[in-house]
């Protein structure tokens, strides 16, 4: 199994488009407001829906004043469990791929605060909103079970999206017995909400048994199939458009009750219906990052080598469905240890079901692991970077497999150098800045899997030598419109300006999901392959045509470049695509491509992006006020398709890390079970003035196994490492080890 696989026969080279720091192709549309988001859709005859949501966390709805709501001018219909038309698929079943149980008015039960309990549809948004208020629900409430102290503990055989809840290697007890030092510690992470800037929105319209939907969506083809199942219509009868998303972070990858209810309302009333969730309504039915309580045990020998690593996570989930934040799995693939155990338990609470949120598991798990590593380094009297280098994993610790590529050592070195890590005092509370602020430096390792999904794409070369390429990709703001088009252009051997890229709709081949940081690799791989397919067909035409200067060159004897095929044996002989088509009498030439991983490579290798994050914080010694003043991240994530966009993704991830470390937390009222800060005034994320000087270094990495193009992902890795780096820097500044996130100012004063 450890035998290296032969390199692919002819590694695919990047062309002149990818690798370039192009600006966003959709930038102009966005800054001028011309880019249309789902809620900008106003079909003829549009009705507006508003949700009424539960203000209790557990019990049943005993009364809704439907009469009052219906009597309000402009209200067209009130949908409650009493009159809600049947669905073809049970919202409480989990038979669809990647689906969660949802609340679509199937009964009067309330299982979390913020659950939809009625839908009011009206001629105007104002009337619908007022109608929803007039419902003035009454409840039979039961005591809410919120918080780890009140939840229902349960084993977690599965975590995340179908991963086992327990993984181990080696003999843990022997490892601890061999240790000269054991650090045992625990970290708490709070519930967090995605809070994409663009609210969840949907506009649904029926034409007979054809359904058309405008909504932001990270998984277009999968959603199409699921909606079809809910409404008992053929998949091809659902058309879904999602050209732009104002952020998704995982919450727009999964179907939720409000969407189904909006489509249902449109069918019931025979008119298009729009539903836009309010900010507060996104704290419930559309997922969140579940809170965790994690404990870690790290055994080290006299040289500081890990002898055993145990990571246990208790992750919050709802009472009716499972999404167990796979936090402990963060310890499986990063540091060498002869014995590793990662295990999970669930804690059921009366909340909406958590779901994947940017780096699900990796973010919370890395936060705890990187802090625990810092504690172990401290206990061993070692510099945190030295300690990590001592425990550098040359092969994947949990599987023993070789990495497809791992340039983490270079990340450590380049990051440390750029940050100026050398000379950092080992002891805390040693550094002050010119204003007397306590100053501290911390670091963390970053790691994120490099998955691939399935995607298809189509490329059509047109008579004029330009091309149309299509796949149902999702631009969530990460820049897919640009990076994917760059890859498509390279596949075609065309300049990007010659390529029209269509994306974001079910009219196109399945672009897979924008998730798991695998979209560029997967959809981009499919687009590139589609382009190469076109080139291969074109080459066949030209090399078989005695009229062509390429005649007889053979399929591998030409290179596609700048819209021409060029002979490898004589660069002066070439022919333009348009001329080849014209002579063949073709109006267009179509090619297709698929993006997926070579299963043999997938089996043989462990595939991850890596990085190292360094942070500097300043702490006011009397007030405890914390400011992150600098962050430097160095990341190795395969070939970088667009360095400008990749850096933006990495900055964004690092700022999420800062947000995780210092700001984000949904605070529940333990009695009502409601989120008390369900708005952006109370749920803090960093403002620009909280954002430090940042650097994201892109470390060269040639990964020949991850996929033909050598592309990994950069969307999520930036959070990992960053949380720990900041927390560790706070310890270094103050000497106080805070073990609960977010770290508050009063925590560092030890109050």
């Amino acid at each position, binding site marked *: 199994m450890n035998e290296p696989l032969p390199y692919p026969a002819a590694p695919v080279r990047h062309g002149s488009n990818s690798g370039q720091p192009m600006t966003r192709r959709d930038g102009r549309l966005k800054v001028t407001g011309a880019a249309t988001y789902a809620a900008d859709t106003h079909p003829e005859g549009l009705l507006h829906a508003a949700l009424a949501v539960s203000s209790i966390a557990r019990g049943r709805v005993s009364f809704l004043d439907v009469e009052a709501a219906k009597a309000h001018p402009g209200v067209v219909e009130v949908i409650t469990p009493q009159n809600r038309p049947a669905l073809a698929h049970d919202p409480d079943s989990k038979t669809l791929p990647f689906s969660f149980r949802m609340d679509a008015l199937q009964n009067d039960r309330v299982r979390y605060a913020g659950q939809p309990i009625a839908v009011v549809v009206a001629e105007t948004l104002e009337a619908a909103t*007022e109608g929803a208020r007039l419902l003035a629900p009454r409840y039979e409430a039961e005591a809410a079970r919120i918080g780890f102290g009140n939840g229902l503990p349960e084993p977690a055989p599965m975590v995340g999206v179908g991963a086992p809840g327990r993984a181990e290697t080696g003999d843990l007890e022997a490892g601890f017995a061999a240790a000269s030092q054991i650090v045992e510690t625990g970290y708490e992470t709070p519930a967090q909400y995605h809070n994409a800037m663009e609210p969840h929105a949907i506009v649904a319209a029926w034409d007979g048994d054809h359904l058309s939907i405008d909504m932001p969506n990270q998984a277009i083809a999968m959603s199409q199939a699921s909606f079809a199942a809910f409404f008992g219509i053929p998949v091809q009868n659902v058309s879904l458009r999602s050209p732009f998303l104002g952020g998704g972070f995982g919450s727009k990858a999964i179907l939720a009750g409000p969407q189904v209810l909006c489509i249902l309302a449109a069918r019931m009333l025979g008119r298009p219906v729009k539903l836009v969730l309010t900010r507060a309504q996104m704290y419930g039915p559309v997922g969140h990052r579940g809170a965790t309580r994690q404990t870690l045990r790290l055994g080290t020998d006299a040289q500081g080598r890990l002898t055993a690593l145990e990571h246990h996570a208790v992750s919050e989930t709802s009472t009716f469905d499972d999404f167990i934040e796979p936090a402990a799995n963060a310890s499986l693939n990063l540091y060498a240890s002869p014995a590793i155990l990662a295990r999970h338990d669930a804690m059921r609470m009366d909340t909406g079901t958590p779901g994947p949120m940017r780096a699900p598991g990796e973010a919370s798990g890395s936060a705890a692991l990187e802090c625990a590593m810092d504690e172990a380094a401290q206990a061993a009297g070692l510099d945190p970077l030295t300690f990590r280098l001592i425990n550098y994993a040359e092969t994947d610790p949990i599987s023993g497999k070789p990495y497809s590529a791992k340039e983490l050592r270079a990340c450590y070195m380049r990051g440390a150098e750029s940050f100026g890590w050398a000379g950092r005092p080992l002891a805390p509370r040693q550094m002050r800045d010119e204003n007397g602020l306590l100053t501290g430096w911390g670091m963390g390792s970053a790691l994120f899997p490099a998955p691939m999904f399935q995607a298809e794409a189509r490329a059509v070369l047109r008579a004029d030598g330009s091309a149309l390429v299509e796949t149902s990709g999702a631009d969530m703001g990460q820049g897919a419109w640009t990076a994917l088009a760059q890859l498509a252009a390279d596949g075609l051997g065309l300049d990007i300006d010659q390529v029209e890229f269509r994306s974001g709709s079910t009219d196109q081949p399945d672009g897979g999901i924008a998730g798991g940081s695998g979209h560029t690799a997967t959809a981009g791989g499919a687009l590139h392959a589609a382009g190469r397919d076109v080139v291969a067909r074109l080459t066949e035409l030209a090399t078989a045509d005695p009229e062509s200067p390429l005649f007889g060159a053979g399929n591998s004897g030409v290179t596609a470049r700048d819209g021409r095929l060029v002979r490898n044996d004589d660069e002066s002989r070439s022919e333009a695509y348009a001329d080849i088509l014209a002579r063949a009498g073709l109006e267009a030439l179509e090619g297709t491509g698929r993006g997926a991983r070579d299963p043999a490579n997938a089996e043989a290798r462990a595939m991850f992006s890596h990085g190292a994050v360094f942070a500097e914080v300043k702490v006011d010694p009397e*007030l405890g006020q914390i400011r992150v003043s600098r962050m430097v991240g160095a990341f190795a994530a395969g070939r970088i398709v667009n360095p400008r966009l990749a850096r933006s993704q990495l900055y964004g991830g690092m700022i999420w890390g800062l947000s995780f470390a210092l700001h984000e937390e949904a605070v529940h009222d333990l009695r009502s079970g409601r989120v008390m800060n369900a708005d952006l005034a109370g749920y803090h994320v*960093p403002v620009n003035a909280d954002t430090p000087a940042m650097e994201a270094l892109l470390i060269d990495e040639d990964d020949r196994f991850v996929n033909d193009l050598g592309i990994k992902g950069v969307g999520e890795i930036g959070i990992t490492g960053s949380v720990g780096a900041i927390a560790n820097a706070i310890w270094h500044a103050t000497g106080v080890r805070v073990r609960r996130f977010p770290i508050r*100012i*009063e925590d560092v004063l030890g109050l």
Partner: protein
Amino acid sequence: MLFHRPETLENAIGIMQAGPVRPLAGGTDLYPGLRDGPPPAALIDLSRIAGLRGITREDGGWRIGATTTWTDIVRADLPALFDGLRAAAREVGSVQIQNAGTVAGNICNASPAADGVPALLTLDAEVSLAGPGGSRRLPLGDFITGVRRTALGEGEIVTALHVPDAPGGRGAFVKLGARRYLVISIAMVSAVVIPAQDGTIGEARIAVGACSAVARRLPGLEAALAGCAPEGIATVVAAADLSALTPIDDVRGSAGYRLDAVREILGRVIVAALGREG
């Protein structure tokens, strides 16, 4: 819903007299406060009344019109006495909020965390009211009577604030929040110090916000600071009786932290207002 947009104060008072109608200035408190509820049956937009906006010199002091925005304060050419108010203005929400939000709106909304109030208290500001029964004027400390409660009578509006001259006086303000900007205060402290000839503190006015139902002046500390040399400030502050402050534990900070933090900020703000640092 009725929406009145009078252009003169007389019209405004007439409208106020005619029926229950809620004043609207920048709307940055009023609209968010509605949450999902309906708007009041009648609103009167005060922003078109020219005489209500702007800062003017008047006999013995300054007049700040009710609809003067925080941005107006930031940009006005005001003496060092107003440095605390100007610093507070820069901390109200964000630039967009400062462009719309008004000084009178801030005091009429009467939030314990209103950032303008401590600075205005240390300026000894008075509030002018106009209503069906005529006009009256009362100290700001008497105007705000509790959490979201004011002395505004039926049909009355605030027309202006008045700040008396205090030659040589300098203001300072520090806001403590859980992030750098766009944040509800954990605590804030404002001071005005009028130095004596010999460099000691002639007169000190101190106010603390977000640590009691209504922001408070600290007369005991003010008295103890009179005649105090710069080197003595720390000792006086350390010994100050802060029992007038009754902070609560909330998501933004614990009561204990608030009290500790206030004492620390007090020292910094007084030193800054004395003009010795910063």
